């Protein structure tokens, strides 16, 4: 039953990566900026959850973390929008600066401590289909699926979501329809920040040790996910996240059999999958092909 266990763990890890990847993609679709400060925003949200949970309760901690990560993302968007340029590479590079600043400050605050998230699942385990699984990972899967489903309902079935999609397709024409580009940008970033916070909570929860100052780096695992799925595709982000999570879980689980690859192939494996996908589909599985009039 090892394969079932690994697949389920991969699915739960994939749900977490999918949340991070979806955040990246929402921000990219809304503003054409690749937010390289996403890992730091995730760390910020999870850090606030841990601190507030310690002094009150987990629910309040989550609320505080979501608000902080959402507002932090809006501040980041306002800062990068100060670059008065039509070249989207410039604000993308600015997010590297923001990432360095935020990561440095959070590292200073966290120091060498490892924070517990104060979540209700702790290190409890349950037996499912004959395999033992951490409760926190089951919660991650359920919450991940629920948040992703809620996102698609808003994006596909509400007037607001329709305007977001219109703006993502053609920002200038959307502006001509009276759709506020500033509001679209702020909402996109706030949604991305909040989703990163939720992912951060589960990445720090059991079976992982807790939140330390390196936790933000885990967000980089979403990079192969968004490239596999397609940078401008929400569906692609979810699929890419699941592929990365399951790949990592399987490679980690069968590390002995894959010994010839070296001792730590799991973090590298998603990039191998990414390269394989790019060779067949250069825009990712669901990504739009670049069209140029010549």
């Amino acid at each position, binding site marked *: 039953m090892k394969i079932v266990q690994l697949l389920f763990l991969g699915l739960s890890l994939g749900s977490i990566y999918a949340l991070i990847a979806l955040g990246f993609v929402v921000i990219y679709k809304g503003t054409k900026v690749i937010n390289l400060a996403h890992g730091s925003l995730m760390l910020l949200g999870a850090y606030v959850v841990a601190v507030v949970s310690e002094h009150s309760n987990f629910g309040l901690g989550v609320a505080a973390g979501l608000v902080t990560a959402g507002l932090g993302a809006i501040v980041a968007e306002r800062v990068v929008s100060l670059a008065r340029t*039509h070249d989207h590479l410039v604000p993308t590079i600015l997010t590297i600066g923001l990432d360095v600043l935020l990561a440095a400050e959070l590292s200073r605050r966290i120091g060498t401590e490892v924070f517990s998230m104060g979540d209700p699942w702790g290190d409890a385990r349950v037996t499912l289909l004959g395999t033992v699984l951490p409760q926190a990972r089951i919660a991650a899967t359920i919450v991940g699926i629920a948040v992703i489903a809620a996102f698609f309902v808003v994006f596909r079935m509400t*007037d607001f979501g*329709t*305007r977001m*999609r*219109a703006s993502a*397709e*053609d*920002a*200038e*024409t*959307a*502006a*001509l*329809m*009276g*759709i*506020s*580009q500033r509001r679209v940008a702020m909402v996109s970033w706030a949604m991305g920040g909040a989703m990163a916070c939720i992912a951060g909570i589960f990445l720090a929860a059991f079976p992982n040790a807790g939140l330390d100052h390196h936790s933000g780096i885990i967000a980089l695992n979403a990079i192969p996910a968004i490239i596999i799925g397609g940078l401008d595709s929400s569906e692609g982000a979810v699929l890419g996240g699941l592929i990365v999570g399951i790949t990592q879980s399987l490679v980690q689980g069968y590390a002995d059999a894959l010994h010839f690859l070296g001792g730590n192939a799991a973090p590298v494996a998603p990039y191998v999958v990414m390269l394989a996908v790019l060779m067949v589909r250069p825009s990712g599985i669901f990504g739009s092909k670049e069209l140029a009039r010549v």
Partner: protein
Amino acid sequence: MLELQGATVRYGEGAPALDGLDLTAEAGSITAVVGGNGAGKTTLMRTLSGVLGHHRGRLVGGEVTFEGRSLAGVRAEAIVRRGIAHIPEGRRVFTDLTVEENLVAGAATRRGRSDGQISRIYDMFPVLAERRRQRAVLLSGGEQQMLAIGRGLMSEPILLLLDEPTLGLAPKIVAQIGEIVQHIREAGTSVLLVEQNAAMALAIADQGFVLGQGRVVLGGSAAALRATNEVQQMYLGGSAGDDEQRLDRHDGVLERWSA
């Protein structure tokens, strides 16, 4: 209602795309703006709808007012709220959205439900009602133009800016678009119609302007414009020659007007 006085627009540090343009559009009328490529027609539309910044353009001189209030520096979405809707050249429908979603996107400035206005658009364009669940990319060129017009009308504008609505369409559809524009005016919305198809534009307009090199080179009632030799020669095929002769005449007439 709409007034431009000495409007001057530049893209970057280049030569002005609008060079001291004077133009007025009266309430309840169709105003046609005709001219060749590079005359400044599309820049005029971008100036009025607040999207010059998307093209690195800026209003560097003159005044642009709508209903007595300046439009200089006003954001596109605020201009829509003031009652101006711009239907850009090339239709620019949201191809990933369905027909109905395109109409919903056009209702961004409306408060409350937009179902009533969507019904009115479907009454005006029954073909859109039939295809309401289809993605806009699957519509024909003429249907896409109808959708673009319907989407523009969702905000119930006072003034509709139509940029080259007949571009690339079959003659039968061009005639249909002309009727639709007249219907829109009769329903109470003023129209500023930018067209290369001067015959169609001046046939339905109340007044017209001919643009050349970013300035108005000729203006007046549409009937009077249709009767001028210059407009006859350049745009209405009064004595049609081959393309090269027509181009020579275009340059010659512009020189005389600009002198």
